[in-house]
Every structure is written in structure tokens, then in C-alpha cells.
């Protein structure tokens, strides 16, 4: 065989290569299709069941396809009437009367009415697995009084229950009444009230949703369709974002100004308000010496939060204050409580002095010990693979070592970590907070005896296992307070209580991630126009609906 002949043989291969290289390069995205990346999945599974208690349903299901009675705007801290137009408390807080919106139609053209709301809640009552907000823990009955009015009767006065009722997605009775097993129902062809209800394309690597032909907000949405490419990881989604293949995402991006914005400053924007809960260092208060408030405060003062935020979060957040609340409560923050927070400022010398005075002295090895006890040797638990946490823990450990605590970072797989913190089997661990519309939600899981479970019993929150009698009475009063002014007052007192008792050690408020192609669409919330939380991740109480109905494609292409 001679050389030319070899090339002849290779000709088909070369031809193939030619075809491949001539294949269309990156296509321009249609100007009115919004490409969203929120979920990270290797491939899509078709599920639009808004009630199913897993993240099995695709992202837009909860805030795009289906809608709740009220949408919670966490930036303005208010409930925006959505499928409902108003509510009032009656019978001294035992009855909640909600008025539903008229003129709303399901995407199949049928009318939405109060009966659908009553039906949805009845569905939750009959299928406990669907009631992920635990509404039937405080509800007694739900009845449609007429087409426009629903009565929620409570077992006891429980004002915070309103926030849970407000957030439940409403499904159409005429479709769901005949579904045998609504828990497993994949709802492949959703009939809903939201702005985007028509499944145009569904393949395992991409799907598209089109507009609801009967949407109740006039001339909305302005976006023609939503497209969702499947990216398996943060990293892949970020690449797509940088290459203008995604318009809206809620991902962590390192060095975002350099990596994303500077590539195309006129087209790329982001806003990371610190509203996604707070990250805490939880100390197990059932164990010595963490039951001592002086120890908790000293540990807190040993942590250099400024460095931590630099290293772990690329300065996207700020050091926490002594209320332990994220900026979702910015409007409700109590300045007195913040002023009490000298124990969240980095001051290792003072921390050492405090521990010396409390009688926890250093041994010959340089580590402190409780009187009559062994050296303080503790693991700081984090989830393996959660890089921000791992880095934060490294900073914490350095700080603790400096004041004489033999601390080390210990990583566990998520499930193992979660089991430990839930059962209270740890000394120190990082963890998130549980924030809802009112400070009530956050503090209930930080210091209420109602959330306190014995060590060994899995607990939803309150992993550090702390209960304060004062907190109990304040929270109890909150449950019965229907007046906003009263709620405000109680919220302030809760904050001061937290700042003085230091049940847990707040580290930083967690940023709410949001990157967007402002060159293709206008109307994304931003620092200048903070009309809602900008992140697609805040879907739990319907907030993305505010954005999806506000976005407009830019007609002139930059």
C-alpha cells in the first residue's frame, strides 16, 4: 500500500469532518425566548405536579405554571395579592376569610373560582404527603362560601399560618378531581393559571413552555416562551451563561465581575442581595461547654468574619450582625439588637480573656479545658463538596485554634451530615437558618421549646437544641398577634433576646444568586430597581412570578 492510496481511503473520513465543521455554529437565540437555568439536572423528567413533595417537579411549576393565593415579595417584605385579592381575620383570629380574584381563567379556558381553592386544600388533607407546609397542623376546615370567598377555620389562633396558606399552589378541581393518585401524578400536560402553561417542547436535554392563552394579567407575559436547557452542574450552567446561552440563572459564580460582567458589561448583569437565609455555626447546647453562653460568645468573637466572607464567598456577603437575620428582614431589623452585638465582632484577645475569666484555662498543650474535663477538641462539621462551607469552616477552625480550642474541619456526605445535625450528634456544625416572611419563623427554629427535640430524635430545625422560656412567650404572643404594629414590636423583642442569649453563632447572610442577560430583556430587579428578589431560586413562595410577568424583550438588539 502506498501513501496516496491511504489518503484515498481516508477521503470519506475527511468528508465527514468537513460536514461536521460546516454544521451551524452557535445560533442566535430568538429575542423573545427567555432561557432559564435554575435546576441542575443531567436530563429532564417531565413532571409539572405543583403539590408533589419532592423537587421532582420542574422549576417553573411552582412559580410560572401554577400560582399561589399570595406571592411573597421578600425585598419589600409584603404579601402581594395574586389569585386572592384580600383577606381578613375573624372570630378573634380563628377564621381567615380570603377573597379570590375574579376574571381568572385556567389555561383550558374554564373559570377559576373559590371552589378550586377549597378543593386544593381538601386534596392536601386527604393526602398527607402533599401537605408539605403542614397546613393541616393548624387548620380545621376549608370551605368555599361562594364563588369568590373561602373560609379557613383554624384549630387555634395561629396567625403565622396565613403565610403557609398564602403560598400553596392552587390546582383546578375539574382536572384533579379525577386523579386517582395525586402524589405520583406527573401532570405532563398542566392546566393552570400561571403565565406559562403550554409545554411546547420536551426532550431530555431541553424543554420549552409557551404562554397561557387565557392569562389573567392583561397583555402579559411579554416573553413568548421560556426555555430550559439541562445543565448537570453549576460549572456547566455558568459556562453557558458566560457564552450568552442562558438569560437568567441563580448560580454561584466565582469572581463574577471578571468572569461574567467584564466579558460584556452592556449585556451581563447580576445582583446578589443577601436574602437567602443566614449561615450559622451551631454549637450543640446540650453538651459542655457550649451550654455556657460565655463560651458561645467567645467562640463567636474568635471568628474573623471579614476574612471568612472574602475567602468563602468572594465578598458576595457581609459579616452577620447579632440578630442572625438575613437581609430578607432588612425592613424589620432592630437597631438596638444590632447594637448589642459586640460578640459578633472579631476580637480574639477579648475572647481569650472571657474564657480565662470563666475558668476555662489553657493546659500545657495550649488547649483549654473545662474544670475537671479534658482538652477542648471539637470537629466542625460541614457537607463535603459544599465548597463555600468547607472554606468557611477552615477560617473558623483557624480562629478557634488561636483562642485555644483544638478544632478541626470534618466533612461528611450530605446524608450523614444531615443525620448528625438532625439528631444532635455533633459539637460544632455549620448550618442554614429557617426563614419565612416574619422573624417568627426564623426564631422559632433558633430558640423555641416547641422545636426542641431530645438528642437522638431527628429534628427539623433547632439542631443546636436551645430553648428559652422568654422566647416561648414572645413567640406565643406572635402567634396571636393579628396587628402589624404588635408583630413588629414582638419581632424587635425577639431580636434583642437572640442578641443577648446567643443561642447560635451567626456567620453571614446567604446571598440570593441572580445573573441575567439585561441586554436581551429589560425589567430584571436590580440594586437600582429592587422591586423583588432577583433570584430564580426564591420560588418557594412564588416570587419569580413577579419577575416573569415584568420582563420585556428588548426589541432593538445591542
Amino acid at each position: 500500500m502506498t501513501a496516496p492510496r491511504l489518503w484515498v481511503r481516508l477521503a470519506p473520513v475527511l468528508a465527514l469532518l468537513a460536514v461536521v465543521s460546516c454544521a451551524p455554529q452557535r445560533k442566535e437565540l430568538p429575542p423573545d425566548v427567555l432561557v432559564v437555568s435554575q435546576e441542575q439536572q443531567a436530563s429532564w423528567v417531565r413532571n409539572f405536579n405543583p403539590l408533589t413533595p419532592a423537587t421532582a417537579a420542574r422549576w417553573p411549576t411552582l412559580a410560572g405554571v401554577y400560582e399561589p393565593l399570595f406571592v411573597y415579595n421578600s425585598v419589600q417584605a409584603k404579601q402581594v395579592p395574586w389569585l386572592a385579592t384580600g383577606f381578613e381575620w375573624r372570630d378573634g383570629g380563628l377564621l381567615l376569610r380570603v377573597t379570590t380574584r375574579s376574571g381568572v381563567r385556567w389555561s383550558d379556558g374554564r373559570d377559576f373560582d373559590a371552589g378550586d381553592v377549597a378543593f386544593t386544600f381538601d386534596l392536601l388533607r386527604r393526602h398527607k404527603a402533599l401537605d408539605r407546609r403542614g397546613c393541616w397542623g393548624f387548620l380545621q376546615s376549608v370551605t368555599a362560601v361562594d364563588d369568590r370567598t373561602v373560609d379557613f377555620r383554624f384549630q387555634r389562633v395561629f396567625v403565622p399560618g396565613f403565610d403557609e396558606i398564602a403560598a400553596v399552589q392552587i390546582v383546578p378541581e375539574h382536572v384533579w378531581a379525577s386523579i386517582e393518585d395525586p402524589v405520583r401524578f406527573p401532570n405532563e400536560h398542566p392546566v393552570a393559571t400561571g403565565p406559562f402553561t403550554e409545554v411546547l417542547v420536551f426532550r431530555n436535554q431541553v424543554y420549552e413552555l409557551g404562554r397561557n392563552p387565557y392569562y389573567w394579567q392583561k397583555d402579559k407575559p411579554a416573553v413568548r416562551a421560556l426555555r430550559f436547557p439541562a445543565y448537570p452542574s453549576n460549572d456547566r450552567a455558568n459556562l453557558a451563561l458566560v457564552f450568552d446561552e442562558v438569560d437568567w440563572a441563580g448560580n454561584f459564580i466565582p469572581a463574577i465581575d471578571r468572569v461574567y460582567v467584564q466579558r460584556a458589561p452592556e449585556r451581563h448583569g447580576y445582583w446578589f442581595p443577601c436574602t437567602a437565609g443566614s449561615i450559622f455555626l451551631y454549637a450543640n447546647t446540650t453538651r459542655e461547654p457550649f451550654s455556657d453562653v460565655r463560651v458561645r460568645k467567645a467562640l463567636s468573637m474568635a471568628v474573623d468574619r471579614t476574612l471568612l466572607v472574602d475567602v468563602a464567598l468572594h465578598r458576595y456577603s457581609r459579616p452577620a450582625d447579632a440578630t442572625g437575620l438575613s437581609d430578607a428582614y432588612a425592613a424589620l431589623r432592630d437597631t438596638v439588637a444590632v447594637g448589642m452585638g459586640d460578640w459578633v465582632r472579631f476580637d480574639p484577645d477579648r475572647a481569650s480573656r472571657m474564657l480565662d475569666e470563666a475558668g476555662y484555662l489553657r493546659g500545657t498543650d495550649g488547649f483549654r479545658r473545662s474544670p475537671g474535663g479534658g482538652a477542648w477538641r471539637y470537629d466542625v462539621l460541614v457537607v463535603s463538596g459544599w465548597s463555600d462551607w468547607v472554606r468557611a469552616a477552615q477560617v473558623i477552625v483557624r480562629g478557634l485554634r488561636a483562642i485555644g480550642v483544638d478544632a478541626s474541619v470534618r466533612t461528611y456526605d450530605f446524608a450523614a451530615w444531615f443525620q448528625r445535625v438532625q439528631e444532635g450528634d455533633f459539637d460544632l456544625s455549620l448550618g442554614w437558618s429557617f426563614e419565612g416572611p416574619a422573624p417568627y419563623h426564623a426564631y422559632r427554629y433558633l430558640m423555641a421549646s416547641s422545636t426542641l427535640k431530645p438528642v437522638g430524635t431527628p429534628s427539623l430545625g433547632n439542631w443546636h437544641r436551645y430553648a428559652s422560656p422568654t422566647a416561648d412567650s414572645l413567640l406565643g404572643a406572635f402567634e396571636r398577634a393579628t396587628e402589624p404594629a404588635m408583630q413588629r414590636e414582638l419581632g424587635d423583642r425577639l431580636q434583642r433576646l437572640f442578641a443577648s442569649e446567643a443561642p447560635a453563632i451567626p456567620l453571614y447572610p446567604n446571598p440570593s444568586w441572580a445573573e441575567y442577560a439585561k441586554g436581551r430583556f429589560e425589567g430584571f430587579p436590580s440594586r437600582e430597581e429592587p422591586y423583588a428578589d432577583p433570584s430564580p431560586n426564591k420560588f418557594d413562595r412564588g416570587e419569580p412570578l413577579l419577575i416573569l410577568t415584568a420582563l420585556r424583550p428588548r426589541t432593538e438588539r445591542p
Partner: protein
Amino acid sequence: MSGPLHAPRMGPIELLWDAVRSDRRALSGAIILAVFLAVAVFGPHIVGDATALVGIPLQPPSWEHWLGTNGQGQDVFAQLVVGTRVSLAIGFTVGLLVVLVGALVGVPAGYFGGKVDGALSGLANVFLVLPGLPLAIVIAAYLPSGPVTLGLVLVVTGWAWNARVLRSQALALRRRDFVAAARVSGESRLRILAVEVLPNMTSVIVAQVIGSTVYAIGAQVGLEFLGLGDVSAVTWGTNLYWAQNDSALLTGAWWTFAPTGLCVALVGFALTQLNAGFDEITNPRLRLERAWRTFLGDRGRGVERSTPVVRDHD
């Protein structure tokens, strides 16, 4: 017949030394390997704490940080050096263990034959045909992450090939005159195994250990890359895991993943070269072949990475 084919009774070190002295490839492999071993032993003392946060994250290489900093602001060079120790330690340990398990299954199977062989080599063949990486992922997923888990997983998924090779070697030895002679003279079977058979397998075992180490390092790096190792430890695999996790591609931080991959490849390549040279020197069949070829004036050296496979079907 037992004369020329009866491999000289040398220890593994002598055998390797022999190979390094007389084969160019073995020599080059050994030199690269020696450098890495030196780094593994002394390096960590020189570079200090690799987890220290020394600077701004994702800085490109500079005089201060030879290979820049990673996404956490740690020195990439220090991490590479410290990672060398852990990765090589796991690699060589697992390499040894894999061969040990393989020998425990393969040698009795080949030597005793019959039902023992049927059961043991059946087991080995089953494990050989199950796809290794998915199996490793599934097992690693359930155990607490750490070097022990990693080692265990690699042994479970890697022993079968060694068992197969060692079995056929034992099978071949069983048919040899000197073993037969020992058997006739009434020595116990275990004694024959220990005194006559095993020493004659030294060269194969050494070759298998080297080969298995290549496997162990590669598979370990792969699993750790997927986040199935202990991600807070500093190893080559976790370095790559963090590089990926900290968006090395997005930020263009090639220095966080390129050097590590290069090191993995260099070690793998060195071991392969060493093995190729070693095989040629010690494998009697190859030696014979070579001599024969030279004699016949054949076109040149024929190097077979011979994997003696004795078919169990005919």
C-alpha cells in the same frame, strides 16, 4: 527442561535493579519515579501547610506562587507536592493489596485446579466482566468517604485481573518438572505452593504490582474527581475535584488542573515504562524469544506485554 526456564530465584528488588540497569525504558521510568518518590517523602516538609490560605484565589503562576493559587487561595504547588505523597501512598498500597487479593484467589485456583479453580476463577471472571467504574461509584457512595473506603473500593473492583493472570501462571508452574518432582517426593501441597511455586512467580507478581499501581492511581484520581473521596484531604484527585468545583474552566485557571494531570500521567507513564523494561528482562519466554529472534536475524525486538491467558475452554 527445568534448567533454562527455571527463573532465577531473586527477590523483587534485585529483579527490578536488574531491569533498570539493562533496559533503557526501565531506567527512564525509574528515574521519573524516583523524582516523584523523593517529592513524596521530602516535599511536604519543604512546602509546609498546603491548606494555608496564602493569597487571593485564582492568581496565575508567579515567583511567589510557582503554580499560582487555587480557587480557595491556597498554593497550587504546595498542594501538588502534598498530594503526591497521599496519592502515591494510596496508589502503591492499593497496588500491593490488589495483587495480594488476586494472588490469594488466583494462585490456589491455578495450582489446585478442579472445583476450587472452577469456583474461584468463575468469581474472578464475573468481577472482570462487571464494569469497574460504575461498580466503584456505587460502592463508594455508601461508605464514609476517606482513604480506607477508597482503597477498599479499588481492591474490590481491581483484584480480578490479577487473579486471572496469577492463576494462569500458577497453572503453568504446576505442570513444570520441579513442581512435579516435589510432589512425587511427597511434600505437602501447601509447602510446595510456598517454597516452589510462589518464589518462581516473583517476577510476575512484581510486574502485576506495578501494573496495579497504575490502575490504582488512575482509578483513585477518577473517583476523587467525582467527589467520592475525602474532599477535605489534599490529594491529586481532590485537587482536580476542587479545580472543577471552583470553575477552573470558567475562570481560565488552567494552572489549577493542568499540573496535576501532568503528574498523574508522568507517574503512570514511568510505571508503564518500568514495567515494559522489567517484563522484557525477567519474562523467560520473552527472553527466549528475543534470543531466538536475534539468532534468526529477525527484523528486531519484539516486545510483548504478554498476558498469559490460559483458556478455560478449548
